[in-house]
Every structure is written in C-alpha cells, then in structure tokens.
C-alpha cells in the first residue's frame, strides 16, 4: 500500500486534508474534540462522503461508497462508541460485519476461535453481548474487524474505555498487527499513548492538517502545543483546604442497588464520604456501575434503606432528586443533551429545569419567566457561554458551551454538594480547563464535590482523594498526592479488597 491520499476541499469539517499511510505502520491521527478526526475516518470508511477530493488506495483512485466497499478494499474499523448489537451473540455480531452467514455457521465460529487465540483475544462466540464487559466488547470489535483480513485498521479512541493493563494488552495486539504488515490508523488525543505506540503522527486542528511528526521525538507538551495551537495553561487549581477532622458532609454506608436495566451493573455495599471543601474523584472504566451510583447519589433512584445515604447527619436514602436538591445537593449528569438539558427547550427553560426550586422561580405553581430569564442570563455571562442568548435551544450549543451552562447553572444555585459525571468528556481544552477550575473553586469555597470520571489525568489534577469503582464495588479512597496513576490503574482492573465492614471510603 502506497500513498493513500485524501483531499476534501471546501468542507468545514475537513478542509483540504491530505493524509499518507504507509504499509506496516501505526499512524496516529491527533487532534482535539471537533478537529475533524471522526469525520475524516468516517469518509475513509464510507459512512460519510467527501464533497470533493480523492482517495488513492495502493496507487489507484477509488470510490468508497459505503462501508461494505471499504471492507472489500481491505479497510476495517473499530468504533469509538461500540457498534455492537447487545441482544445478539458474539458470533452473530461478527457475522453481521461480514457479507455472509449467521452466527450459527460452524465455520464462522471456528474462525472466530482461531483468530481470537492467535491474537490472545479470549472470546466465547456464543455469549450474548450484553453480558460482556467493556474490554470484552472491544475484543469482539477487533476480532470482527480482523475476520475481514484488513490491510488497514482504523481505531477510534480505543483506549478511552480500558484499564491501563488492558491498554498494554491492546498495544501488544496492535504491534503484532503491524508486524503482520497491516497498517493501523490510530485516533486519539492521549499524547503519552501516541508517543509509546505510533510511528508517525498527523495533527488536525479546525479541520486542517497543521503538522506531522515522529511522536517519539516529541514531548507531550510539544504535541499538545501542536494540537491546541498555542501554549496551553492547565486549569488554575487553588490550594487544598484540608478539613481532615471536619464532619463528613455526605456519607454512604453499605449501599447496594440493582441496576435499572438488565445490562447495567448493580452496586454492592458502597461506602464513601465527602467532607466540605474537598473534591472526591471516583475513577473506573465505563460500565462498572457508575450510572447506578450516580442515580443513587442524585436521588433519581431511591435506596432501599434511608440510612444508607446520610447528608449533614440526616438520612436521605429514600429522598428523591427534588428533595435532595432542596437540601443543597446538585448534580451534573454525564449526558448533557437529553439528561442534563432538554435539547428542544431554550436555555432559560433549561435553567428552570433544575433551578426552579433553589432560585424560587415558581410561586404557587406559577412560573416567573422574567426571573427565569434573568438567572439564565447570569449563568451565561458568568461562565462565558457562547450562545445566541437565553432563548437559544440547548441543542444549538456546542458541547463545551452547553457543559459550561449546565455546570454554571448548578454552581450558581449555591450548592453544599455538587456531583459531576464526566464533566469534561468531549469538551474542547479551553472549556475543560474552565470547568475544572470552577469545580475546584467551588470546593475551596466550602462545598463538597464528587467527580466521577474515566479520565485519570483529570482526577489527578482536580481531586483531593481518589476511589475506584469496579464491578459495582467501590475501593477505599486514597489521598491523590500519596498515590500514583499506576496504583489507581491496578484498582481499575479490580485488584482491590472489597470492604467487608462498613468503613467509609
């Protein structure tokens, strides 16, 4: 394979992008969220079509009309958000990506087993996908891709859902693929990984190729500068106010809860506590019970026993979301559009959504729209939300701006405790730093903050203590300054003693 060139003139997402991939290399595509990485690979895989430009495959100009055409050429893809079918078996999922057979085909099942042995990707073809862990699901994706014997494998942010140990295993697989003469296009914004793994890197910014380099010759800082386009200051983090001896604000003791869906992870005997003035980080790979824990903390789901959750000494396990908010517990959900905000409603109505109680926007069942608008505008100006005003629909905002609005809305309600899930997931670097600063400032002003995140860097930047959630169990927490990312990584793989007695984490 030589000289794969792609050009897309006149397009906002990808502006005259050219990219060369050599046979047998691991090539990084590096860029911030919104830089155009996803669009570029979707075009390469035939999911979307370029307005103009050409794709040369092994020297010949090709038309990639759809993913099937891409697969015929020898291009395979492992998706960022898994594109698996939860209620189907592993073998059925593989069969769907091929152009023949079903999961009942014995030859297909044998082939899956052979490939998974060859690359050390243990898989049972008969299992139903919803029973699998996130790591196992990724193996299904990879095997599904390898079944087509691809010459080029596209991997979109493959490590964002893996534990550090799983990442190492994945890198082994990728190096073996490279040794077989296959090419890997590796999309990421994690600089260290790219330095460890990739032979070459192309950097995208604002839809344009801004640079290319040999990542092993660069430092993470120089890569970051290329990616963001300017030297970058991290969030301004205030000094921790240690209140070791202070009374706990929120205490959870022995909380267990069934998952809401049969595919979710149930909580088992969770213990944690947060004191005023500190940030507690909860790390963990997605799908280990975070959703259930967040619902249990926010009150969207009520615990079986009232005393499993206590706030300022009062038992609140059976108090709902509205009651907890009245007490001063506010919440920033992971999903911004569709959970934290109603996409089709204006920002002011979204201010009303969570703020009507604490801001007293409703009198005797009647809404005061003037006060609502005023509050929404205060949030917009205080947090620098770029929008068409308080009347703009939530849907019309960019991810970073909507997240700033939601965080701002919650912080400006003067909470005693703020719980945030993935506060900077998919947010541009500037907004992320602003959000992280705001969260730490809130804690320094005396409130408690819980941040649930998969991003270890983020947790080490902003939290005072870190605990890890794995398979519905929560580890004991450790002070951030006294622990390392490696230690937390081991915990994320489940290597911890589950608390047997009710000692708060």
């Amino acid at each position, binding site marked *: 394979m030589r000289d794969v060139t792609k050009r897309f003139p006149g397009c906002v997402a990808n502006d005259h992008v050219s990219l060369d991939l050599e046979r047998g290399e691991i090539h990084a595509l590096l860029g911030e969220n919104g830089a155009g990485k996803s669009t570029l690979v979707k075009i390469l895989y035939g999911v979307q079509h370029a307005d103009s430009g050409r794709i040369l495959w092994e020297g010949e100009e090709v038309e990639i009309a*759809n993913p099937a055409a891409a697969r015929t050429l020898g291009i395979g893809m492992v998706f960022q958000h898994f594109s698996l079918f939860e209620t189907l078996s592993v073998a059925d999922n593989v069969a769907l990506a091929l152009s*023949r057979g*079903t999961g009942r085909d014995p030859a297909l099942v044998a082939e899956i087993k052979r490939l998974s042995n060859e690359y050390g990707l243990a898989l049972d073809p008969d299992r139903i996908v919803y029973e699998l862990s996130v790591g196992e699901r990724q193996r299904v994706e990879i095997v599904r891709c390898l079944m087509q014997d691809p010459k080029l494998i596209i991997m979109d942010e493959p490590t964002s859902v893996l534990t550090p140990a799983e990442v190492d295993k994945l890198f082994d697989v990728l190096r073996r693929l490279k040794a077989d003469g296959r090419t890997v296009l590796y999309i990421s914004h994690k600089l260290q990984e790219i330095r460890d793994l990739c032979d070459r890197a192309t950097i995208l910014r604002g839809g344009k190729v801004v640079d290319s380099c040999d990542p092993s010759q660069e430092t993470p800082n120089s890569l970051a500068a290329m990616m963001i386009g300017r030297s970058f200051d991290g969030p301004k983090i205030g000094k921790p106010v240690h209140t070791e001896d202070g009374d706990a604000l929120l205490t959870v003791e022995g909380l267990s809860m069934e998952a809401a869906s049969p595919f979710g992870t149930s909580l088992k005997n969770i213990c944690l506590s947060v004191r005023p003035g500190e940030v507690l980080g909860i790390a963990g790979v997605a799908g280990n019970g975070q959703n259930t824990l967040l619902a249990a903390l926010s009150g969207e789901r009520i615990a079986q026993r009232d005393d499993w959750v206590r706030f300022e000494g009062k038992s609140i396990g059976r108090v709902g979301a509205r009651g907890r908010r009245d007490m001063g517990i506010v919440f920033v959900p992971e999903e911004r559009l569709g959970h934290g905000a109603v996409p089709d409603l204006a920002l002011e109505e979204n201010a009303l959504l969570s703020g009507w109680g604490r801001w007293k926007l409703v009198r005797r069942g009647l809404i005061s729209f003037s006060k609502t608008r005023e509050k929404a505008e205060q949030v917009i100006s205080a947090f620098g939300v770029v929008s068409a005003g308080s009347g703009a629909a939530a849907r019309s905002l960019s991810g970073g701006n909507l997240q700033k609005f939601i965080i701002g809305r919650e912080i400006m309600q003067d909470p005693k405790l703020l719980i945030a899930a993935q506060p900077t997931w998919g947010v541009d670097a500037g907004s992320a730093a602003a959000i992280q600063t705001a969260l730490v400032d809130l804690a320094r002003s005396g409130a408690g903050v819980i941040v649930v995140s998969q991003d270890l860097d983020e947790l080490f930047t902003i939290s005072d203590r870190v605990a890890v959630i794995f398979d519905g169990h929560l580890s004991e927490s450790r002070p951030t300054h006294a622990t390392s990312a490696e230690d937390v990584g081991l915990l994320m793989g489940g290597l911890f003693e589950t608390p047997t007695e009710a000692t708060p984490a």
Partner: protein
Amino acid sequence: MESLAPIVLSVIAAATPLLFAAMGELVVEKSGVLNLGVEGMMLGGAVVAFIVGVETGNGMLAAAAGAAMGMALAFLFAIMVLGLLANQVATGLALTLFGIGLSALLGRGYVGTPLPALPKLYVPGLTDIPVLGPIFFGQDGLVYLSIVLSGAVAWFLYRSRAGLILRSVGENPSAAHAIGYPVIRIRLLAVLFGGAMAGLGGAFLSLSYTPMWAEAMTAGRGWIALALVVFATWQPGKVLLGAYLFGGLTLAQLHLQSMGIIHIPSQFLNMTPYLATIVVLVVISRDAARIRLNAPASIGKVFHPDG
C-alpha cells in the same frame, strides 16, 4: 369426539385473522418500527378482498387483492414514517382513522351483499378421516397459509441471514448503518410485509370468517393483534400460541352465549376479548427485564442517519 372437530375448526378460524396481523406486526416491530395502523390495514384488506371476491368469485384473487391493499396502506405509512420522519404513534393512529373511513367509503355499495362461499380444501380420503380430517385437510386455504407464513417468519427471523440483519436494524439502527446496511430500505420491506399480512387477516375475516362486509367489522382485532405481539414478548412461537388462545376465548364466549346456560347478558360476554387483552398486557408488562431482552431496542424511534 365427533363434536370436537367443529370446535377446533372454529377456534382456528377465530385465531387466523389475529395470527396474520400479529405475525406481520411482529416483523415490523423487530425492524424497529411501531405501526399502530393494523386495524386500518385490516379493514382496507377486508373491504378490497370482499369487493374482488364478489366481483370475480375468485378467492385466491380476492385474498391477494386484500394483501395488496394492506400493503398499499402500509406504503403510505412508510412514506410518512421512514421518508418524512413523522411520529410513528401519531401516524399509526392516522392510518387507522384513514383506513376506517376509506373502507367504509369503498364498501358502501357492498353492505349486505352476500358472498358466494369460497371452496374449502378437500382432499379425497384424507378430509373424510373423522375429527382429524377436517382439521388438517378441510379448511380455507388462508388458514394453511397463515400457519405456513408463521413458520416462515420464525425461520426467517432466527435462522436466516436476512432475518439477522432485520433484527440488528431493530436493535441498533445506527450501528447497522455504520456497518453499511440500508436501514430505511430494510424497514420499508418489513412495513410492507406487515401491511400484506394485516391485509390477509382482513381478507380472511370478510371472505371466510364472516363472509360479508360491514363497516368497522374488524371490531378491534387489529389492536388485539398489537397486544398479542407484546404478549408474545416478540417471539413468533408465542404469537402463534397467543392467537390460538384468543381464538379459543372468542369461541368459548360465543358458545356460552348460544347455550344460554348462564344468564349473563351477551354484551358482557362480548367484552371478554377486550378485558382479556388488558389482563394479558398487565401480566406481561410487569416484567420489564424480559421485555427489554426481547423487544427491539429502537422501536418507535425516528432514525435519521446523521442523528
């Protein structure tokens, strides 16, 4: 023993329209589309089949015309829901209202017209076997068709590659699209099949079950068929079972009325299929987990490739 055959025969006859409509809707829902217009499509099928039956005297042609009418109405639904991304619940309701009106309009000259009885299957020797003969070899051709099609649907969904693709589209249309399957086209075919099946169910009603045409003669069977799909938790075998249970219930109710043993006004007995539907829905819907494992995850949601 001798009296058993007519009972079984009438249970099967009462079940057949439901079986057609519910099997069709099952396929539609497995592809992720909820078509609440079954009642309207059944009525359309019933009236067109009846008209063609009266005019030509040809049962096969009449049934085919009924299926075609069901399909035509389903196509209308598909344009709205798949092409113009209209709300599926509202469009299904519109289809039912439209079907009721249109069938009444088309059938206005045929109310009270007698239909020449269509020949039933007769296999010399076999049909004459007592009890079993008439059951297995002496019924309207559509009865056999309904059973054959049910088997075909079960095989298609769980054994064939095309069925696997259909289920994958219903489970996760975005993922199916990303792999490269034409989601809209697959759903269109499923909706058309569902329409043809509902049309056949209606045709059986007006040609064979009660060989006549009356406005709104389906009397809610389209809705009961929808409930049957939920009852069956989207599994073809259970759709078959459910249809026959309902057939039995309808028959038991008619028998109680004709025997006049117990003094219950006929209206109360007539309520039983509707009340039974409610009871069944309640019993099945309690188990949310089981529904989630079998119900197509994307059902009723608009799919737009760009999100």
